């Protein structure tokens, strides 16, 4: 079916009218506006406003990247209450990959490698530096997006390596950009409640991203939602990111991460898709200085991620290839199969798929 015409921002909730006026005028929304976005029953009106902003920026384009996710280790000194990934050293299921192991996971031609891991108690900073240098040497065509601000902070806690020094050295070794993980939710209350006081807090997380931006390293930002946080905490998190972006300007994308219940079960089940769509839309409207809002399909599910493209999302992350997908693919090339899946998700929503690189340069426009 043909591409739908742009929405007219029809509103059912009269309280959204001033928000619409601000959106039209390109004015910044307030904290109170933000709370309203998370509370209004008018999901369609909210989505239309966010879709309008997204369209004004990119028309019907939605981007993705051919990428791989690599975890050097899941060994972690922390015990965050929401994490299913981390293991203690020697615990069943713990893994520690050598540099050669990691290299083997990044197949030739990979556009972007996304590398994050646990806070390993024994690995020196030097390991990470050598890892980046080795990938860069072996796969010069691959852009390396590596290490969260939480990991950078941990190197200071464990080895007293200053973040600036760490990032400078990594950049020299071949680091292109940083992922946005480890932000969790900026709330001292939840840091205590969910047992992540030993992790970079909001100030530290933002400080490290500011340093990266100052060094010319672009980064992303995330928010872990759909557990026990309040709507106020969500809005404050978003406003904190907006404030940091005003100061340092190096954020490329905001990625709301829907909490996965897994075995940690902070809540009985994953937040419903309507909450995902609302969060995407509210993020697009509040984060007026962020280039992109991402619908991360691995966590949202393909259907909700596809629908989120009507609610202000302009990116779906990427193919997120791993060995499992490679096994599933059988005869077809895993990369080709994964791309088809992403293209379908975007085209189903009537949007134009744009393949990008890690830094959002256009690689190919898929008609």
């Amino acid at each position, binding site marked *: 079916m*043909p591409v739908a*015409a742009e929405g007219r921002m029809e509103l059912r909730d009269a309280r959204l009218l001033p928000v619409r006026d601000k959106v039209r005028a390109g004015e910044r929304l307030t904290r109170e506006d933000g709370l309203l976005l998370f509370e209004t029953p008018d999901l369609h009106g909210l989505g239309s406003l966010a879709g309008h902003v997204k369209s004004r920026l990119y028309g019907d384009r939605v981007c993705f990247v051919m990428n791989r996710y690599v975890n050097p280790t899941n060994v972690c000194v922390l015990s965050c209450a929401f994490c299913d990934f981390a293991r203690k050293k020697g615990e069943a299921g713990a893994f520690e990959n050598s540099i050669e192991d990691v290299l083997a996971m990044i197949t030739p031609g990979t556009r972007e490698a996304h590398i994050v891991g646990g806070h390993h108690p024994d690995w020196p900073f030097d390991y990470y530096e050598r890892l980046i240098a080795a990938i860069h040497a072996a796969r010069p065509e691959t852009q390396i997006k590596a290490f969260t601000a939480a990991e950078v902070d941990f190197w200071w806690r464990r080895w007293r390596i200053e973040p600036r020094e760490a990032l400078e050295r990594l950049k020299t070794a071949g680091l292109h950009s940083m992922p946005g993980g480890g932000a969790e939710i900026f709330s001292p209350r939840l840091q205590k409640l969910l047992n992540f006081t030993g992790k970079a807090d909001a100030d530290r997380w933002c400080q490290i991203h500011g340093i990266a931006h100052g060094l010319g390293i672009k980064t992303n930002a995330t928010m872990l939602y759909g557990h026990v946080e309040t709507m106020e905490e969500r809005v404050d998190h978003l406003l904190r990111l907006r404030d940091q972006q005003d100061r340092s300007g190096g954020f490329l994308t905001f990625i709301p991460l829907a909490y996965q219940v897994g075995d940690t079960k902070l809540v009985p089940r994953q937040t419903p*898709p*309507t909450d995902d769509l609302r969060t995407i839309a509210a993020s697009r409207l509040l984060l007026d200085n962020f280039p992109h809002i991402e619908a991360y399909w691995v966590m949202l599910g393909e259907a909700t991620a596809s*629908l989120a493209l009507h609610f202000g999302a302009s990116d779906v992350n990427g193919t997120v290839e791993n060995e499992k997908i490679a096994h599933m693919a059988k005869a077809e090339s895993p990369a080709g199969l994964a791309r088809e899946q992403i293209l379908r998700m975007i085209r189903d*929503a009537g949007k134009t798929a744009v393949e990008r690189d890690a830094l959002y340069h256009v690689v190919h426009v898929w008609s």
Partner: protein
Amino acid sequence: MLGAIRDKVEAGKRLDRAEGRWLLTEAPLLDLGSLAQDARFRRIPERRVTFVVDSNPNYTNVCVTDCQFCAFYRKPGDPEAYTLSVDDVLRKVEAASLGGATTVLLQGGHNPDLPLDYYLSLVRETRRRFPSVTPHFFSASEIHTMALTSGLAVPDVIARLKEAGQTTLPGGGAEVLSERVRTRIAPKKGGPGAWLEVHREAHRQGLKSTATMMYGHVEEPEDVLDHWDAIRDLQDEHGGFTAFVPWSFKPGNTLLEKWITHYKGPSAYLRMLGASRLYLDNFPHVQASWFSEGKRTGQVALHWGADDFGGTLFEENVHAAADYVNRTSVAEIVTLIRDAGFTPAQRTTTYEILREL
């Protein structure tokens, strides 16, 4: 166009074909959803979403109709062909009844070897032995098969089924009610007239039925409009339809799989649902299908005009044959409806409320 349609919806006026076409092809999806919710709440002001506790067993997969979209059927004599005895089927009804089902939606292939008595016994014995179960048996094309094998006319077959205790018919087998589409994907099933004839006659005799639509294969918007016009006109005659139920075609293991590799996505589904709520102004209910579109899309669909969440489907074989499997429980249905922001209510086959939860 949006403004004109909104005015009509507010005035309770019927949409014309050009407006329907615009909704299907051009309307912004979120504006469409918002309008569809207006229409839904005009009809049912409460934030209530109904569901039915049901099971969908099949009495035979033997079929001589060879539809290109079907992964379920087997030709007579095929090693995988099966036909259940009346007792076997009743055991399935019993299992459903013990599980709390109030509806058993029983369908099967077009098996020319089954006598009319087989079908009549299924209805009669279900009524006699499981009074809490409504036998929601036999789609239109099966009734045509009964007419063919018994030599009776369609009205007489329906009269006999009614006499045996049948009060409702399922709406399956409509696919898309357009000559062009039916000729292409189900040439041996008869045109749209065959399906409409059975439902018209059933409604005339006081039976209720649903209307379905399976989209996402060879149809164009004009075919969908043909389908809607046909069932809307028929509904004007007797008011016998309880609900409209669209779902996307699943190509797995079908002849059409060669050309259509994947089912239509959630945006197309929401568009179909929302536009149908607006266009089918004389249909009491529109059903969201957690089963065929996925639970999360099903939840979103409750914001695109649907007021019913379908059934629990304790047993299902037709989608499963296309390698599409999805399961739930009453507790999960209740939770999904609540999480989507609505009040769940269990209903009967004919949409009377049994209990609010």
